[in-house]
């Protein structure tokens, strides 16, 4: 049997619309709007129709998982998301520092 080959797409880079974010993240439109209100997700421009950096999908999927697994409300979620983002930035910085240090 021949299997058709599928393309894997990077989530970072490019742009994602609000409607796509609703479709792919597993969060409802209402929940996403709340996360935007709390500043956990930032549209590129404040006016609707909103669009986002494609990396917002990763954040929204993490939010969906945390909401489900920890039963968090939007306020708590946005706080946790900001920590997750900071941890990811620090980890990237640490990787860069470690890579740049002679062994």
């Amino acid at each position, binding site marked *: 049997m021949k299997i058709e080959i599928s393309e894997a797409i990077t989530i970072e880079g490019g742009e994602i619309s609000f409607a796509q974010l609703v479709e792919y993240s597993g969060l409802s439109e209402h929940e996403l709007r709340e996360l935007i209100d709390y500043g956990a997700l930032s549209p590129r421009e404040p006016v609707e129709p909103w669009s986002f950096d494609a990396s917002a999908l990763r954040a929204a999927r993490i939010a969906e998982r945390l909401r489900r697994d920890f039963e968090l409300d939007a306020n708590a979620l946005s706080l946790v998301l900001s920590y997750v983002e900071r941890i990811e930035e620090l980890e990237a910085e640490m990787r*860069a520092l*470690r890579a740049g240090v002679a062994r």
Partner: protein
Amino acid sequence: MKYKDYYATLGVDRGASEEEIKKAYRKLARKYHPDVSKEPNAEERFKEVAEAYETLKNPEKRAAYDQLGRYAPGQEFRPPPDWGDRFAGAETIFEDLDLADLFEGLTGRRRAGPRGEPGPQPGRDYEAAVRLSFEQAFDGAEIELDLSVVEYDEQGVPHRAPKRVKVRIPKGVTDGQQLRVPGKGATGANGGRDGDLYLDIQVEPHPLYRVAGQDLYLDLPLAPWEAALGATLTLPTPAGTVSLKVPPGTRAGQQLRLAGRGLARPGAGVGDLYAITHIVMPGVLDERQRTLFRELKEASNFNPRAHFEAEARNSQ
């Protein structure tokens, strides 16, 4: 089907209240959730805990679970004869199912539109870990994944089925990155869209190259005379060897940049490769070499610790 003791997984009594179950779950989730836990096997443990909670938090599912009877964890069992009729649908074949699939099916069957007719249901997303060699990540790769997934037939009865997916991984992916394969999740029902497959990328470390973003770092050992006099060297890069000019007077720990020799990522340009200089002494010096170093010592008034002396003067 193998029995799982959901109460034991959460560490609660069979008669535990909903509040006790919730509390036990939250405590374990805090400990094992892959987003917060550093415990080994956290993900696996969390899956077990989440599966147990998913069933026990819902009174109907919990009742259905209690009606299965009690067995030892891992013991093969069959639900009581009327169990399928009452909870899961008479057509359910238990042998090829996992307990979690069975209980997930219990809610899946009840989803319906406003008038009770089944509405469009998007397919679930799947997630799979993919381990790539450094070379595969650098060049891109075609990989085949064998997934074991739960599919529902028209009656909403769950079946576990193998699914083989062939995926092209774009070049330039890095450890920890996530990729999306559109439409390769579970099939949507009643006109709902198909789910997506998410790939969690792990890249094996390379003995020479270290990755930071799109840049690569490589340790470049130099002999003292190469650092002093300069040299033209052949340097390996993932895309083939290049010639590198080391300038005279190169110090240890300098980063010599080779533009465009890092990871190329579609739509995001290409990174650089940095060669970090080390100055390495030969292990054993013969008499002639020692003589030459002695001559160098006589000829030079270089003091690498001049700043120590300035500091010592200031503190007197």
